[in-house]
């Protein structure tokens, strides 16, 4: 410090300021894909129809090149004794719960990524490795991910899993809505194999209508709640059930998008870089004034 005069000071401060504000324009361009298309697809899961055959688990593993047992082994129902979660070796799992309407037929619930309309993972990811595509799918990009696992912290459904056991190139594993299959016109693997049509693939807006219609026709069978219609701002996957969703271990979530508060704070702090640049200018001014005061005192 010391010898620079006021003119130099202002000049360099101005240059630093311009450099910082120049960066903000670039950052807007580099943001990850986050499209909320009117035509986005979804799946309606009717848990009252599901029979817990777990064929979807097998189909999912096969479609995603994950190691799997042969299909006939999946008829083993002893796995239902404990609640399971999707992880790095299984992108979807089925859990079983008691059915209050008929104790003979338990309720089975398939679990996988919900493909949120406003995904927390897309908002949180430090490098923008997640993107929300036009068809509704939320997909992870292995070429960007640094393995920080912030997506796992952010996800309200606790879905993304990480290959903790791999020393090199560990991946984030989660349902990708069969992005590669739907791209070429195929159905998602789980929807295709489901023998009882518990899963309906289609335009999300249509699925909401179908779900409402089912509830209207059988009000004694369904609870009047489409899980995923409004939860965390809406999800591509929608669920129907004959009992309260909390009994099926669905998380209790509000209607506000998960990244809402965090994003508004972030965008507030960085509104066109005005707050940081003004703080810089303020401190610069303060520095100059106190320095002059000190000098005049001497």
């Amino acid at each position, binding site marked *: *410090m*010391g*010898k*620079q005069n006021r003119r130099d000071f202002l000049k*360099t*401060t101005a240059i*630093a300021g311009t450099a910082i504000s120049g960066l903000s324009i*670039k*950052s*807007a361009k*580099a*943001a990850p894909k986050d499209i909320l298309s009117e035509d986005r697809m979804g799946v309606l899961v009717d848990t009252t129809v599901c029979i817990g055959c777990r064929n979807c688990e097998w189909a999912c593993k096969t479609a995603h090149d994950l190691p799997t047992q042969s299909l006939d082994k999946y008829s083993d129902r002893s796995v239902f004794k404990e*609640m399971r*979660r999707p*992880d790095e070796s299984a992108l979807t799992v089925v859990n079983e719960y008691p059915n209050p309407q008929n104790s003979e037929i338990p309720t089975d619930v398939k679990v996988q990524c919900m493909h949120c309309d406003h995904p*927390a993972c897309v*908002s*949180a990811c*430090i*490098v*923008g490795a997640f993107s929300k595509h036009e068809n509704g799918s939320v997909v992870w990009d292995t070429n*960007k*991910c*640094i393995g*920080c696992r*912030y997506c*796992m*912290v*952010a996800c*309200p459904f*606790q879905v993304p*899993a*990480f*290959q*903790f*056991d*791999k*020393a090199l190139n*560990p991946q984030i594993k989660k349902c990708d809505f069969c992005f590669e299959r739907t791209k070429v016109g195929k159905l998602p693997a789980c929807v295709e194999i489901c023998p009882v049509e518990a899963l309906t693939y289609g335009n999300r807006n249509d699925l909401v209508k179908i779900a409402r219609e089912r509830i209207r026709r059988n009000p004694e069978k369904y609870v009047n709640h489409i899980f995923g219609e409004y939860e965390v701002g809406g999800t591509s996957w929608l669920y129907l059930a004959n009992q309260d969703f909390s009994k099926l*271990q669905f*998380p209790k*979530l509000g209607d506000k998008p998960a*990244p809402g*508060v*965090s994003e508004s*704070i*972030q*965008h507030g*702090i*960085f509104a066109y870089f005005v707050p*940081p640049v003004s703080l*810089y200018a303020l*401190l*610069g001014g*303060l*520095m100059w004034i*106190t*320095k002059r*005061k*000190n000098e005049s005192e001497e």
Partner: protein
Amino acid sequence: MDSYTKPAQIKKKYFTPGVVILILFALNGLFWLAGRFFFGIGAVTNLNNQYPWGIWIGIDVAAGVALAAGGFTTAALGHVIHREYYHDIVRPALLTAMLGYTFVAIGVFIDIGRWYYIWHPLIMWNGSSALFEVGICVMIYVTVLYIEFLPVVCERFIGHMNLKGAFAFLNKPVEKILILLNRGLSKTMFIFIIAGVVLSTLHQSSLGTLMIIAGPKINPLWQTPILPLLFLLSAIAVGFPMVIFESLIAARSFGLKPEMKVLSKLGTMVAPILGVYLAFKLGDMFIRETFVYLTSFNLQSVMFVIELLFGVIIPLRMFLSKAVLNSPLWLFVASSLVIFGVFINRLNDFVIAYNPPYKLVSYFPSIGEISITVGFICLLILIYRFIVMNFPVISQPDRSYSLSTKFSIRGSEK
């Protein structure tokens, strides 16, 4: 302030029994670290799909960033508002911040699964991510801290270049470069100092934004939209206690007289900042009515009370007392409590408060995780000791001044 003090290398033996113990802990940490790189994160840590972040993020990164805040608070005090009185403590604080942030960066490096992609945030931007902002700010701030430290390196070597043998011819040119660098830096340093303060303000607060997106996974005692403000205030509050803490430890360890005049004056500034922090913390608790969660007795509520009582309220009362401010021992205790409070707060916010909706396995840090965290802290202390012994960082009574009456007029400067 004794006007006859000047930063100088400390002439002492490096190895003491304490240092040897630190080295053993550091080696143990490095041993486990090798395991992490050869066998993966899962082999060394207890992290799992329910608890993706553990103490490496909660302590090494979050608490590390907060406790290195002394760097920017003293820089603001000493350089931005020109309180020359405190110049003696600017360099030690700067060194702590520099080493602290270096270890934060290393902490991130070992925690991320794909460490070889650590440079990705530089070119792959996501403006809506709080973590992106923290990452970029920390990267730039580490660079700024190293630039701020360069004058110390210049001061050490200008006129003392003494390479031997085949490299002797380098002495002259290197010295010329250092002189040029020093001159350039003294003219532009103010840019870096202000940038350092701005960057710190930004990422200290954004560190608080990090857990907001986790929503209901974070215990309501901590989850609040004003987390960034609370993080910033607590970081500012812990800055001076950290400087006091280190200064007293260094004085004891090197057998120097503690600079009580400066330290107790620094201490008078702690209570007001801590008071503002406490007001926001309690105000937030009453507005959101989260005190109801304190009625249930569990890990979270106990940790919250410990954090607030021992980490904020008791040290706040202590810093208001003249007797505490003037006693090295009590000042040390009070400062330690503030440091403890912020440390626990970060650990609480990132680890204890984290409550995933589906718990298949619970989380408690593994021996490997603890070993690496402890090893890094020991390594940091060892490097700090090495640097203050080889670079002019800590101010000491300067004989050359006291011997020569010519300079005694400088005493009027304060």
